[in-house]
Every structure is written in C-alpha cells, then in structure tokens.
C-alpha cells in the first residue's frame, strides 16, 4: 500500500465517521464535531492531491495548499458561527439539541415584531 492509498483510506474513514456522527447524534455540539471530522477528511484528500503533485517531481503543488488554507479558515468561521448559535440556544432553552418542531409552534403566543 502506497502512502497515497493509505491516507486516502484515512480520509474516507474520517468522512464516514463524520457522516455517521452527524446523523445519529442529537446534541448539536456533537453534530458540529462530526461536521469538523468530515471537514478533516475532505482536507486530507486535498493534501493528498498536493502531495501527488510532489510525486511528479514538481516539488509540491502549491495550489491545493492555498485552497486548503482557505477552506480551513472557512470551516473555522462556520464552526464559530455554529458555536455562537448553540450557546445562544442553550441560554434560551437550557438545552443544546434539536427538538422536533414545525418552527412556528409557539409563535402564536410569542410577541413577534414584523
């Protein structure tokens, strides 16, 4: 097994674990961690592609590395936004998981400004 194949399998395992976690966990924080796991798998794929450029005697392909940095920053921003929303939800309801609701169940009584 070459290192490319090995890391490719690792990436597949990460994405698979992440998808599983995203589906089965009800807690939002765990869902967020699962999303990050998927993200790491995808980033690993990108790193393998950059490394493959190096295997061709190019001294490493810089483009995927630039993409990777950008993608990590974007995923970080996404996680920060999600954590902020989860914290606010916890302050409001005292729980941090998604309940089954049609979204407007309570707004009949809630004073809503439109």
């Amino acid at each position: 097994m070459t290192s490319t194949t090995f890391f490719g399998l690792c990436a597949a395992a990460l994405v698979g674990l992440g998808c599983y976690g995203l589906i089965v966990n009800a807690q939002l924080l765990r869902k967020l961690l699962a999303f990050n796991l998927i993200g790491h798998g995808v980033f690993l794929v990108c790193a393998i592609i950059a490394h493959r450029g190096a295997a061709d005697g190019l001294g490493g392909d810089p483009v995927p590395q630039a993409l990777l940095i950008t993608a990590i920053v974007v995923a970080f921003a996404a996680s920060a936004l999600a954590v902020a929303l989860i914290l606010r939800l916890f302050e409001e309801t005292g729980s941090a998981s998604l309940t089954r609701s049609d979204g407007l169940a309570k707004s009949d009584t809630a004073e809503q400004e439109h």
Partner: protein
Amino acid sequence: MTTPTTGGGLLLVLTVLLPVVGVLLGLVVGGRHAQRVALVTLLLGLAIAVALTGQLMHSGEAVVYVLGGWSPPLGVALRADGISIVMILAVAVVVAFIAIYACGNFGTPAGVREARRPVMFWLLLLAITGSLNLVFVSGDVFTLYVALELLTFAAVPLVSLDGRAETLQAALRYLLYALLGSMLYLLGIFLLYGAYGTLDIALLAQRIQPETLAWAAAALMTAGLLAKTALFPLHLWLPPAHAGAPAAASAVLSALVIKGAWFLVVRLWFDVFAGVVAPRSMQLLAAMGAAAILIGNVVALQQARLKLLIAYSTVAQIGYLFLMFPLAAGLNAAQLDSAAAVSGGMLQAISHATAKAAMFMAAGLIYVTLGHDRVADLRGVGRALPMTLVAFALGGASLIGLPPSGGFFAKWLLLSAALASMQWWWVAVMIAGGLLTSAYVFMVVVRALQPAEPDWKPRTRVPRYQQGVVLALAVCSFLLGVVAWCPDVTRIGRPGLSVVEAR
C-alpha cells in the same frame, strides 16, 4: 489560453466590492448610520447593475475581469454572461424594494443610539447582496465555494434575527444542512482539481472527460448544492427557517438566497459538466423537482399559517427551477435551440424572486395588522389592507402562471420546450402544480375578502409606503411577461449552450 479584461470589467469588481465596503463601513459607523450606508450602497449597486447590463447588451459579449492581470489557470477571472447579468439585475431590484419596506421595521428607534436588530439586518442585507453577486460573476469553482459560504454565513443569522428559541433552532438546522452541503461541494472541487489540474470553469469544460471521477465529482457537488437550495427531499430545513424569520428577512431568504445555490447548479451542469452528464441524470434532477412541485404544493394547502404556507410554496417553486435541465438537454438532442428552456428557467427564477418577496412582505403586513397569520382567520384584511391583498393576489397569479405575469411566460417557455422535445410528463406536472397553487392562493384571497366583525379594529396601522412598495413589487412581477418583447439577454456570452450537442 489568455482571456484579457474586457471593457466594463471594473464594474464586475465594483458589484462585489461595493456591498463589502458597505458592510465594513456600516459596522464602523454603526447605529442609525448603518441604515443610511446600506441604502446608499444598494442604490449605487442598482446603478452598477444597470450599467453592467447596458455594457453587456452594447458589446453582445461576456464581460471579463482578470484579477491582478494573472490570467487563468494561475489567476482568477470574474466573468459575467447573460444569465449572470439577469440575476444581478434581479437581485439589485428586489433588494432595493425589500430595503424600502424594511425601513418601516428596522429603523433604529428614537432615543436609542444603537439597536442590535436593525444594525445586523442592514449589514446582513448588504452581505447577502455582495455574496450573491460574487456567486453570479465567479469564473472558477473555488471562488464559487467561498461565495456560497459567505452567502450561508450572511443568511443564517437573518433567520434568527429575533433570537427566539425556535428561530435559533431553525437557523442551526439550516446551518447544519448548509455545512454538510458545502463539504460535499468542496470534496467535488478537490477531485476535479486532482484530475484536471484547474479550477477555471472554461478550462475545466475543455479538459473534463466522461469518466467515473468526473461523475463522482458532479454527484457530490450537485448533492451539496441541492441541500443548500432545498430541493425536495432536502427541503426540511426551509419552512421553519423562512417562516420564522421577520418578514423582510424571509423575503430575502426565500426570494434570493436559495437562488444562489441553484444558479451554481445551472453553472455546473450547463458550463462545466455539459459534456459528461447523462440525460438520465437530468431526468432524475427534474423528477426531484416534480416531486417538490407536487408535495410542496399539497403540503402548502394544509398549512394553518400564512407564512408557513408561503414557505412551502417556495419548496414547490424551487421544483420548477429544476425542470429546465432535461428540457434544455431534450431540445439539444432534437437539434433545436436549447436557449428557450434556459431562458424559461431564468425567467422562472426572477419572477419567483419578485413574486415571493412581495408575498412574504404582504404576509408581514397582514401579521402586523391582525396580530396573527392564521389562514382560517383572515377576515377583514381586504378592508384594512386593500393594496396589500391585491399585491398578494398578483404575486400569487405570477406563481400560478396567469398571463401576462412573468410566471406565465416562464412556464410557457418551459411547456413549449417540453412539448418540442416530446417530454409530455413534465407538462402534466407543471399543469398540476399550477392548479394546486391556484387552490391555495384563492383560499387565502377569498378568506381575506370576508368582512370582519363590526367592532373589529386593526391592531396596528401599517404605513402607506410599505403597502405601496409591496404592491409595486407585485406589479413588477405580474408585468414581467413583457420581457417577451425584449431581446433575450440570457444568450449573451453563452456559446457554451451548444456544447451539449457538440460532444
């Protein structure tokens, strides 16, 4: 391959950069100045969109701007062709209407230096405009990814602007769908780069081969985008998110934001994957659209609340947007001009944007007047808000597809494309969808026309200009059918439409 910057290229940069500058400036000055900055920026944005349209129609070619003079594949190019320009113009117009409406709900109250809700609303509105424009003019798939993420990050907080628990849940559910979608899209990009060594749309279209890897990338990217655009069966996040947001925010989300990811599907399938996707996969995409039309409309009929009804109607209308794929392919296969189907799809997107924005804003006014939005209990609206009810009916007429509305002309183009390419089953779906839509529009209008109880008084008086702006937008949507007499802008700079038959 070098594509030099064309005349008017700087306008492309401005159309993206100006809203971003507006966001930063609004954040710095804060308070009630944020609103003024936003209004000025949106006005300038409208002027730029008009200038860009003029440039495109004058030259008859796509406008290109090569960033920093580095041409692809090393550099990044911005490119606006016919379909981008109509979307930029539509977004600029609809956002301008929504902004005037929102002045009534998101003004900073007197005596307060800064309130969170108004400042955030105006900044997010600018951010959505800027990121949508970036989606429309990006020339490479990775910039598109960044644009799409910016759009999501601007749209999610709009959902939970109220800060109530159920809107926070809706926002989080939306965010999770969107994040999973963006990861799938990103994986597709990496696979494409790994195989073909470029991210530029034009170069990718030349290099791509019909092989397993390209199909996998197409499937991953499309699935991710469908989650973001809420095509059935990935629509579950949409109704609570769109119905729970404040009316002006719902209008932005429902009319414009979902079109960003849809536009990307159009870009990918017609420009990048044109040579490699099989007709069967186009049929699958449209079958999901058909399911969205039927199920979305039936569920909309059962809703007890006006805003949820309109949100489910959005789920259904998204379905129409995906019918154009097999129709365009079918026309191509029959050696006919596929531009009619593409124009129909684009027009459907624009007429839905105008009509749905007007309907959500009308629902907002009805909510304020009645203090609720229960569909069964809309008596007296016709008397209290005549202009708003007319606006709702006109928007509904456009969704149903009554002449001379934009929806009519769009469905006419799609129907004739379906008949010309002998795909009668899509005709049946479109007609059934129109009938179901008319059922719930009439249900709402008839109930709103019933006289109120004698001692009933509106809870709040709605400013006249808000009613006027909703009506104006609805009239725009209703009269959009006149574009039948305009030159077909969507063809400009799109020789790529014939790529399907060339391969």
